[in-house]
């Protein structure tokens, strides 16, 4: 109202200086552009690793709190598929054993696992990965990736020792 009166009487306009505000806005924009880091597209494999327990114990008692499945009456050792991962000196994946069977590379491991899991007479629903201490995490993830792809999410780990095994997680 006042400005209108002012405009009428004097014929002048009130000009709000926008330039300093624009300067400040550009500075803020520069700050955000420089500090902006796009979030990496990370994924994850969720696992429930129980404390160290004798997985291979045939008489291991079942946890009564867990939901009972048809295969739960079978001892855990018989439901566990063991994959042994050997490493070469540089930490890359070497020999791979699926139980007693030696497989060549990831493709064959995937094929064999598919065959085993599609056989409904076999009780496997969890996996034990025994890995060479030198094995790189990258190589381990490749195997976990295959299991996860085949809907085996109950995975436990064990460190491979000279005598071929170790305490499992």
């Amino acid at each position, binding site marked *: 109202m006042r400005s209108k009166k002012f405009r009428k009487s004097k014929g002048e306009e009130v000009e709000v200086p926008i330039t300093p505000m624009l300067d400040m806005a550009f500075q803020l924009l520069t700050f*955000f552009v420089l500090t902006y880091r796009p*979030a990496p597209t990370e994924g*994850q494999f*969720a*696992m*429930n690793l129980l404390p160290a327990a004798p997985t291979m114990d045939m008489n291991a008692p079942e946890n009564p709190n867990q939901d009972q499945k048809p295969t739960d009456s079978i001892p855990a050792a018989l439901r566990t598929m063991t994959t042994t991962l050997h490493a070469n000196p540089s930490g890359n994946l070497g020999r791979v054993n699926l139980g007693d069977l030696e497989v060549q590379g990831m493709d064959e491991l995937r094929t064999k696992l598919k065959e085993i899991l599609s056989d409904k007479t076999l009780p496997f629903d969890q996996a034990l990965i025994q890995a060479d201490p030198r094995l790189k995490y990258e190589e381990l993830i490749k195997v976990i990736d295959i299991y996860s792809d085949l809907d085996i999410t109950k995975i436990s*780990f064990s460190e491979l020792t000279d005598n071929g095994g170790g305490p499992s997680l």
Partner: protein
Amino acid sequence: MSGNVGGEVRAEPNLTPLLDIVFQLITFFMLVINFSADNYDQRVRLPVAGSAKPIEGARAGEERLVLNIDRDGNLLWGGKVLGVELAGQEINTQAQLIKLNLKSAGKKLKSGEPLPTTIVIRADKATPFSQLYRLITICQTNGFTKFALKAMSAEG
């Protein structure tokens, strides 16, 4: 836009639309800025896995403890590089803090009951399994059973 007053040329560009756009850009960057970048150590190069599931919206009340592990198996924690022993002490401290928090919130854990916190492991792709295994064992000894292994999604 411009006027000629006595031979003097004055340019008066309208800056308001420009200011509007700049404010919109500032709003955009403020909304997408990642303030939790500390959890994602840039020194850790994650492996790539096709079936790694993107992190869904954090479940209500779910606590996560992110462990960044470098290529030598050291824990990167608060700007420090901790070896296995110091990492063990730090994980133990964190476990005690979580128990205290639960106690103060009125939730008492039964003896042997696992901690509800999820350990998120962000390990470098060259980390040897032995180091990873030790840290996982330390976490389990301290009562953690929920784990999430991080990897880059294949499309990333």
